[in-house]
């Protein structure tokens, strides 16, 4: 009876983990998404998440019985009007009798959810975990959820685009970027989306002229430079070394993952290039042994809800020096066949089930290193970054996945 306690004592002898008991490597062995659309009127909320989960299980050739725990994420509960919906979704996600966690970190939630799930494997709590994120925006109206009539507060004057557009103007002022850069991003991402069967927007016949001719909604942001409102879900199966060895398809290996948060609004906040984003990327690069992200990373799925955020994040994530990000975009470096492809899937600009958008970035990064991105595959992608952010550009989550297992 007393040996439990003495074990506790002998095991509590050091801070750092010994190499024998260190972190378990984490692999992505199953990925599933719904076809993202404006309104999935044919399914319930449970039916929507189930579809993505079932596809992830099928990809991994696993069954519900193989899943040890479920980690689910989504943006505010008011969007669907269901408080803590994981309670109702437990049955649909095969979670009955299992642990189920629900993450909410604003727009970064899809990425954070995946990272919480990785900890369960890395910390050797579970062998195989299902992680999933979703939004069914057609149940309500996101603008309603974001602008509840809170007394005494100055009403939100301009909608979500109006919140971000002034920061885009600040970026343009700071860098001298020509005002066409945003349209180049939108044109690229919408063309990439045509190669992704799961993308929401499939704008056949898109041209740069059409993007540039679209109405200016929140000057300097045009209609075609904004994201759609989508119903969709994304799921992944994460597993340990033993699980990866049984995987029928090549796994994606986690090389680094991190979250960083800073306050919503504060004196000295840099909305154009928030420090939390820089620190988060630096942490991921350190874990993954990335010395020069521009050279060492093959492609990026980044959270770009408004086109100008591509050059802004290129700088924030260290792919370009400050003020130089727009030059990468303008010179075609971020095109699908460019030197550093960005948002091969079409990105948030083409698909935005809010709570799932971050996880889609993470999953698309994993698809690339598994060589399973189909028509939007980047040839030879070995190391790809997935990126998500949310709140007032304050919550960041990122992971770097590789085709090879981590060496350390």
């Amino acid at each position, binding site marked *: 009876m007393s040996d439990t306690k003495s074990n506790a004592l002998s095991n509590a002898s050091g801070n750092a983990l010994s190499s024998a008991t260190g972190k378990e490597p984490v692999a992505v062995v199953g990925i599933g998404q719904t076809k993202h659309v404006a309104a999935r009127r044919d399914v319930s*909320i449970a039916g929507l998440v189930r579809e993505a989960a079932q596809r992830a299980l099928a990809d991994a050739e696993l069954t519900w019985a193989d899943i040890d725990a479920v980690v689910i994420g989504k943006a505010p509960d008011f969007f669907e009007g269901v408080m803590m919906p994981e309670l109702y979704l437990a049955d649909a996600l095969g979670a009955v009798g299992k642990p189920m966690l629900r993450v909410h970190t604003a727009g970064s939630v899809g990425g954070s959810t995946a990272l919480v799930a990785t900890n369960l494997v890395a910390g050797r709590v579970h062998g195989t975990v299902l992680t999933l994120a979703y939004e069914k925006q057609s149940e309500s109206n996101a603008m*309603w959820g974001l602008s509840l009539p809170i*007394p005494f507060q100055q009403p939100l004057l301009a909608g979500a685009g109006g919140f971000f557009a002034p920061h885009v*103007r600040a970026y343009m002022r700071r860098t001298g970027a020509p005002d066409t850069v945003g349209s180049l991003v939108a044109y690229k991402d919408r063309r990439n989306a045509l190669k992704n069967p799961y993308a929401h927007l499939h704008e056949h016949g898109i041209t740069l002229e059409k993007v540039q001719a679209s109405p200016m909604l929140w000057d300097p*942001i045009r209609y075609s430079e904004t994201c759609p409102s989508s119903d969709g879900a994304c799921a992944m199966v994460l597993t340990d070394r033993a699980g990866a060895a049984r995987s029928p398809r090549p796994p994606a290996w986690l090389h680094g993952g991190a979250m960083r948060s800073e306050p919503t609004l504060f004196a000295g906040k840099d909305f154009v290039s928030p420090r939390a984003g820089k620190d988060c990327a630096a942490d991921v690069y350190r874990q993954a042994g990335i010395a020069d992200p521009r050279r060492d990373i093959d492609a990026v799925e980044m959270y770009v809800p408004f086109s100008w955020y591509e050059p802004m994040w290129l700088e924030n994530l260290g792919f370009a020096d400050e003020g130089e990000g727009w030059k990468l975009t303008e010179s075609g470096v971020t095109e699908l066949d460019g030197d550093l492809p960005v948002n091969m899937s079409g990105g948030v600009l083409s698909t935005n089930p809010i709570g799932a958008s971050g996880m889609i970035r993470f999953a698309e990064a994993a698809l690339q290193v598994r060589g399973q991105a189909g028509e939007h595959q980047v040839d030879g992608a070995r190391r790809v970054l997935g990126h998500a952010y949310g709140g007032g550009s304050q919550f960041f989550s990122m992971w770097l996945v590789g085709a090879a297992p981590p060496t350390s």
Partner: protein
Amino acid sequence: MTEVLKAPLVVEFPFTRSLGPVQSAFLTGLRERVVLGVRTGDGRVLVPPVEYDPVTSEEIGELVEVAPTGTVTTWAWNHEPRRGQPLDTPFAWVLVRLDGADTALLHALDAPGGPDSVRTGTRVRVRWAEDRSGAITDIACFEPYESPNPHELRDPYSGGAAALVGSDGRFEDPVTGIVAPARLDYTYSPGRAQSAYIRSLADRRVVGERCPSCRKVYVPPRGACPTCGVATSEQVEVGPRGTVTTYCIVNIKATHTANLDIEVPYVYAHIALDGADLALHGRIGGIPYDQVRMGLRVEPVWSEAGGHPDHYRPTGEPDADYETYKELL
């Protein structure tokens, strides 16, 4: 110390819920006065029918008609019905296992005999709503039901009195979605710091708070310095003039926002009030929208209604130099 403000906050929306095939069949059935369950792989019948087996996680969809009569498996007497509940007179909440089902449905039981007339095991039947649209409320409630031989009725397929119509779960014009209105009432209070700020606005003064640690002035104050994590309390009057640090031109009226009565286009700007260490947000007026620029000097135009400035207008001063406000951008 300023007394805190309070005001009602109503959170209300008619959510539009798509159903999927199983829930569609069940709710359409209710419209047609038919109760459907769903059969699991091991032969249990779940009522109400769910899309996924809670035991095996399998997707299920084989619909089975069950009787509109059943047995109370547990109950609770609700002497003070609340808004939105099925009856507005005292009733019993009940879980009812319908004849032919293996699980129980939650609903209300109208028991005129009061709590002493209800017990676990009470036989009940569905009382249909007069107007039925395909919703759980098509069952108005349950009502007590004197059956001559309850034991026979446990299996409706044995020819008991319970009427089955022989539905296969397919209906003309099925219900595919419901509208689920939801209203919650709150009393909102913004707390100490924001109450003080809002009260000062009534006197057309803008009063921020200084962090005792980093000395930054927060406008509006939020009660805490978010970088130091300590309470702010030293009040500092700022402005009223300030500088436009950045802005956008709003060309659309977003639905569900409070800007519906503002004519577009208008300028939505970040304004650093003189003496504040971060910008607040406001609308710029008194100048054509396409002449607003970064560095423009502005002052508040107070609204007759009190509270926040209606908008800000140019002061006529020369523009501020970029270097003077770029840290506030």
